[in-house]
């Protein structure tokens, strides 16, 4: 049984309308974090320039085109990595291998679209084929990379937290081998001196075009795919038999088994889907990028940040969309503050960390949710009488 899954289980919610809760939580925790940050600075003798903070950190993010496109740009990939974490949570698993699955997905898709098709199958090199197959390859390889820890968990009881961490390191090294070196890496552009550390540019027919060309950050149709996937995941989780089984195994494996659900199989399926989502995040980032190629380090901490986003989004796909954009907002605010003020941008990281810390304390969240419900005048019907 995954302890972390149980921990977080308290926060599992369902339903579109709970999204309101998430906004509420984010606001409350942001405020709390800001307060803490304020006092941290105060103890070191600095005062937070509140005026500048709101002007560059809030106003310029929400009310300029640059700011808005930044929110979408930074938030988009997080939706998928967070969904990967969320579906695993729903299935009682803690997938911290998003990082590795992201790398493998991005790498495989990029190699497909940069080397394999253009060089070997040039007649297939047209957008209608390339765009979906590249995504698919990314998702499939990410899925395989999620299947491995799922299989090890189901068949050999190897805990997915351990195996996914190890697989993250392995993924980095696979990337290093495939594109890291000029001498032995098979997929680098050897004609260029400084081309190692990245694949060749993927074929133009596999790239995704911007939705709003006027935006400074390129927000592509990948975002649309992402949101569709989030909606699909919501549907799968709460309206299909597969989702029913995933949630059943996640909440009580023993009862699920006693009612004929093969929990091992579900564990493997859950991890595979989870990996596929993270892999898709990887390849979409490659396809959307203005210099479309996989380069080492492109993943940043997107895989890990997905955990935090999933937590704030209460493991609910709709909540995750909101939470991911909240993180996108923080990122954009950080960049704005960095260029326009003398507030150290590291403080935004501290701020982000504080928000996650608050959310990670389930009791705290529950208090806030209860307050929200009272505020929302929805009565929780409690019919617990006597539990002997």
């Amino acid at each position, binding site marked *: 049984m995954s302890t972390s899954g149980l921990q977080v289980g308290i926060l599992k919610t369902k339903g579109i309308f709970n999204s309101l809760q998430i906004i509420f939580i984010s606001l409350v925790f942001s405020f709390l974090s800001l307060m803490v940050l304020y006092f941290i600075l105060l103890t070191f003798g600095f005062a937070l320039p509140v005026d500048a903070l709101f002007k560059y950190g809030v106003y310029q993010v929400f009310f300029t085109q640059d700011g808005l496109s930044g929110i979408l740009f930074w938030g988009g990939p997080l939706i998928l990595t967070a969904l990967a974490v969320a579906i695993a949570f729903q299935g009682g698993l803690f997938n911290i291998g998003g990082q590795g699955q992201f790398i493998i997905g991005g790498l495989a898709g990029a190699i497909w679209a940069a080397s394999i098709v253009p060089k070997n199958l040039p007649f297939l090199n047209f957008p209608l084929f390339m765009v979906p197959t590249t995504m698919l390859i990314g998702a499939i390889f990410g899925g395989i990379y999620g299947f491995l820890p799922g299989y090890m968990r189901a068949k050999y009881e190897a805990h997915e937290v351990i195996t996914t961490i190890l697989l993250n390191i392995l993924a980095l090294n696979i990337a290093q081998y495939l594109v890291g070196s000029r001498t032995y890496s098979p997929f680098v552009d050897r004609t260029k001196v400084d081309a190692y550390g990245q694949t060749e540019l993927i074929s133009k027919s596999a790239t995704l075009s911007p939705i709003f060309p006027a935006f400074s950050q390129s927000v592509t149709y990948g975002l649309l795919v992402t949101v569709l996937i989030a909606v699909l995941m919501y549907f799968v989780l709460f309206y299909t038999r597969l989702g029913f089984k995933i949630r059943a195994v996640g909440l009580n494996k023993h009862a699920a*088994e006693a009612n004929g659900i093969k929990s091992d199989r579900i564990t493997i399926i859950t991890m595979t889907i989870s990996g596929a989502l993270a892999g898709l995040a990887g390849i979409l980032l490659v396809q959307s990028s203005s210099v479309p190629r996989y380069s080492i380090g492109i993943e940043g901490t997107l895989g890990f940040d997905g955990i935090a986003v999933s937590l704030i989004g209460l493991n609910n796909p709709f909540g995750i969309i909101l939470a991911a954009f909240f993180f996108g907002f923080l990122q954009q605010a950080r960049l704005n503050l960095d260029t326009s003020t003398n507030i150290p941008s590291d403080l935004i990281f501290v701020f982000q960390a504080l928000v996650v810390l608050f959310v990670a304390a389930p009791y705290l969240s529950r208090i806030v949710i209860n307050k929200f419900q009272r505020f929302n005048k929805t009565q929780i019907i409690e019919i617990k009488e006597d539990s002997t």
Partner: protein
Amino acid sequence: MNSTSQPILKVTDVSKSFGSVQALKQVSFEIFPGEILAILGENGAGKSTLMKILNGLYRLDSGKIEVDRGWFSDGTPQGLDPVFLESPKQTLDIGIGMVFQHFQLVESFTVGENITLGYEFVRDKSSSGYQRILMDYEKTNEEIMRLSNEFKLPVDPSKKVEDLPVGIKQRVEILKQLYRQANLLILDEPTAVLTPLEVDQLFNTMASLRKSGKSIVFISHKLKEPLHIADRIIVIRKGEIVSEVFPQNVDESILANLVVGRKLLSRIHRELIKSKKLLLAVQSLNYEMNDVPIIKNLEFELRTGEILGVAGVEGNGQTELSMILIGLLKETAGNIFYYSKNNEVPISLNSLSTLNRLNSGIGFIPEDRNLHGLIDNFSIAENVWLAYHSNVEQAHQFIKDNENRESLNKGYILPKKLMEDISKKIIKAYDIKAPNSKILTKNLSGGNQQKVIIGRELSKTPNLVIASQPTRGVDIGVMEQVHEELINLRNNGSGVLLISADLDEVLKLSDRLIVMFEGEIVAELSREEVELQKLSLLMTTGKGGK
């Protein structure tokens, strides 16, 4: 009890509600020194709530509680003082000790460590150096032996708790409260987990505690026990005290009517079934766990229209037997044959998955409803659907709704309407107290949870039901209903394997009886040849048969 003495604890007009449900309505009663007061009521009547208020776990909405601090500290009554009970620690300080149904013991600690936990003996200051921080086990053992002799509760302080039988664990729990100088003990359903012999021992203990001046509150939903041991019985129903009686003035049937609030008509009608066909045959079944044999060479048969009772003290292989039959555990050796409906040729269950077993007409009522039965964080509808998730056709049959049948829906998409209809039907048929089918089952009382499981399993009109402790922790009303359903099933030609630690239940329902002891069947008895004395002996020692 002597009526002239002053009460040591007085509860006046205590009310408590959860959301829109009022769990307690203006409850008032008194406890006197040196008496055993039984609080009797169905599950959901408010017993536990009351008890948790007395223990400081819940705070009351209105009313007051007064205690006689003088009596609690040194036994001399000083009159009542109002108190606000806010935490278990505080009630303990006053001198109220609580023994929960689920023991609060550290299994891997010794008896001595468990009893003194939180108030340990440490070597005194005269010890040198590091020894000062060491536990003083000699003194611990000495103190426990003293207590153990004083109250005639023999225990071995150096034994580990995990090695002890349930009855002794309970004794440790009681000693722990006495060690903490509790003068009023609250026992929550203390007999639920005990064998008949252990129950007798517990009652001796309670009597000797009473003799030494302690007061005891004894919470129960069984009728016999309070009649046997209590000085006074308070009957609580739907959060209100409906009557206060003295055991010498009432009998079981009067008490039953008070508890349930209506006349209990035992509608059990055991039809005579002539043509009995073989349904389940278990042949030389063995099960080992880590090379330790748990089940040894089990052989039995179950026929249609028959309830086969499996009696025995818990932990003698019954749990494993039920898990093997449903496919959650894999037998080490042996064969299990099952004749499904309209099928002359038996199928071997050994190689079938749990799902296939369930779909071939076997219903399973697991022993632990919160582990194997229900998913607490699922709604009633979702929990009911657990039984139908891969058998949508059967769900339609149950609801007999051929018009609105979503014919294209093979179950890949959850048929929400169907799920709701089924659960509504079950909620109605079993009178489950829930406002709607979307309520999470963790918010239901134990009895209602059990009704969800039983309703769900029986709604599939199973051919064979494996019922493990089907009425554990449920009240008399629910118990009657479950018994009726099981008998109906039998009358309609299905077979029931009834595994129960409740001897009364096994005797009442079974057509035939096998007794399990240490993984073996030590006796097989027909309904007519059962003698209580002999059965009790068989269950506890494995001997005494023919």
